[in-house]
């Protein structure tokens, strides 16, 4: 068996011993390699199509304005960093960093709100037996399927009455009140998977729910909390409708709404700035994605499977 250091011949030899016809397995191996090659090519092609818009965006940020319309291809003819300098100067008297900071405050605040409120609710749904549990749990699942638009008008009226228009409160308060059922649901699924031995032992020792929640459950569900944080951050960062409704003065705009300023004012002549600002708005999301993709992908997978 001198060929065993190479995978293929070894398999072929093994199969030779089982099979009566010596040539057939060899062909089988060859067919398998070919299948892998085709498989690889197909996937690379899909990847190229899927990622092309993003790559295009990256390259487009280096195109001078005059090239939009004449050269919509990938590579800029006369690369420049003018777009970046222009974007960083800001627009409508507001510097770029301000939009960035607004986005960051809204997104970070959302993460804190979602983590606090959703983990409390999820613990109650998953671990406490109380009267009304099943009705309330069904109601929570119901809000998972509810189109958000059915409440935007009353919510707008409420926040208007509370004098919160043009502040971040209408965007942050709902997160502190666990209105996004996705997170509650994801955490419930996760907590239910955790073995009950530890918290039951703690209960016998006299620990209350707050204590079990804080020192046993929260540390156990850290991966799910990370998943929730990333989603909460990215969704708040990308949110458009909320800020569009509630924020009226440009110095309060987060990036997506600020992008509209670049877009509305000069849809033809300042295409470069629009595209570049779009790219800059995506950078934090893409970075998050690159660093945490494992959590994101697994989070989505868990959510779907135990539904």
């Amino acid at each position: 068996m001198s060929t065993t250091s190479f995978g293929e011949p070894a398999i072929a030899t093994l199969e030779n011993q089982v099979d009566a016809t010596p040539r057939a397995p060899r062909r089988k191996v060859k067919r398998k390699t070919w299948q892998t090659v085709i498989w690889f090519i197909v996937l690379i092609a899909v990847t190229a199509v899927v990622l092309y818009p993003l790559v295009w965006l990256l390259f487009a940020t280096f195109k001078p304005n005059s090239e939009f319309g004449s050269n919509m291809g990938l590579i800029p003819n006369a690369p420049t960093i003018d777009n970046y300098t222009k974007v960083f100067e800001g627009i409508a008297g507001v510097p770029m960093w301000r939009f960035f900071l607004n986005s960051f405050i809204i997104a970070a605040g959302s993460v804190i709100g979602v983590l606090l409120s959703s983990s409390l609710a999820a613990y109650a749904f998953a671990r406490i037996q109380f009267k009304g549990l099943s009705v309330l749990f069904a109601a929570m699942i119901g809000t998972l399927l509810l189109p958000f638009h059915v409440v935007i008008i009353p919510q707008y009226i409420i926040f208007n009455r509370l004098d919160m228009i043009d502040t971040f409160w209408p965007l942050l308060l709902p997160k502190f009140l666990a209105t996004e059922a996705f997170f509650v649901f994801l955490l419930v699924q996760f907590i239910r998977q955790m073995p009950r031995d530890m918290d039951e032992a703690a209960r016998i020792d006299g620990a209350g729910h707050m204590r079990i929640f804080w020192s046993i459950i929260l540390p156990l569900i850290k991966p799910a909390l990370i998943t929730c944080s990333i989603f909460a951050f990215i969704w708040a960062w990308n949110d458009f409708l909320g800020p569009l409704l509630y924020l009226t003065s440009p110095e309060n705009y987060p990036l997506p709404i600020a992008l509209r300023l670049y877009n509305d004012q000069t849809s033809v002549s300042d295409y470069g700035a629009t595209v570049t600002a779009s790219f800059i708005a995506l950078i934090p999301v893409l970075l998050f994605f690159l660093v945490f993709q494992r959590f994101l992908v697994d989070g989505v997978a868990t959510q779907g499977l135990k539904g």
Partner: protein
Amino acid sequence: MRQRAVKETVAGYGFLVPWLVGFFGLTLIPMAYSLYLSFTSYNIFSPPKWIGFDNYIRMFTSDPAFIQSAQITLIYVVVGTPITLAAALAVAMLLNYRDKGAGFFRSAFYAPSLIGGSVSVAIVWRAMFASDGPVDNGLSAIGIDLGGWIGNPALVLPAMILLAIWQFGATMVIFLAGLKQIPKELYEAAEMDGAGAWHRFRAVTLPMLSPVIFFNLLLGLIGAFQVFASAYIISNGTGGPAGMTNFITLYLYKRGFSDGQMGYAAAIAWVLLIVVAVIAFILFRTQRSWVHYAGDNR
């Protein structure tokens, strides 16, 4: 042990305080209020005026913009969602076939679903499908001359549907996780019985995956009804060209917040809610006939 039950109930509601405030204060009561508003004429400045079913009657009898909005939204949902699901399943099966590099592909395909609804992507999409944009140029190169898609009433909806399909990644990830849970023995048994690839797909993959298909279909349909940001950006908030991106949520926004017809907008929101609820209801009712849960012997 009664005392303990009381204690548990107190603890349960204690933990639920933030959620309960949100559920009643920002969801349930606002829902009831928007139902009330949908029977009124209301512009936020003067008190709502009860007009009965007038908003609903107007919607279906004398508002062609609403009818068109409902039509294009339905086309978007009915065409976009199944294609997205099919693409997601096809790619998931491809990825399930070999492990080599599957992690990389999985992540690359997932990225668009994370940013698909963002303004940035809508802006890119406008450029992609503009006349002389990459798509137009690519198609011209193989002899198909369609011109720009975004300004063309016949092609802007397909461009929007392609944007939805481009975000197949999240659905694909869920399918992939589902595929991994199908026991290999089932395929081996089917192969032993002489089942070909197509037959194995029909007899093993589809039924075993049906709970996941159900889940993805439900969330996909509901999500598709709510598309907003991309339509707003691609049409500069107008819903054009010729109303072909005037999706129901954009129309609702324009009526409520640009024209100040809050009562009418509330009525539109309720029609959307009812349609979504009916679809969810039908899916849940029919699932017994096509969704197979583990341990079921049907």
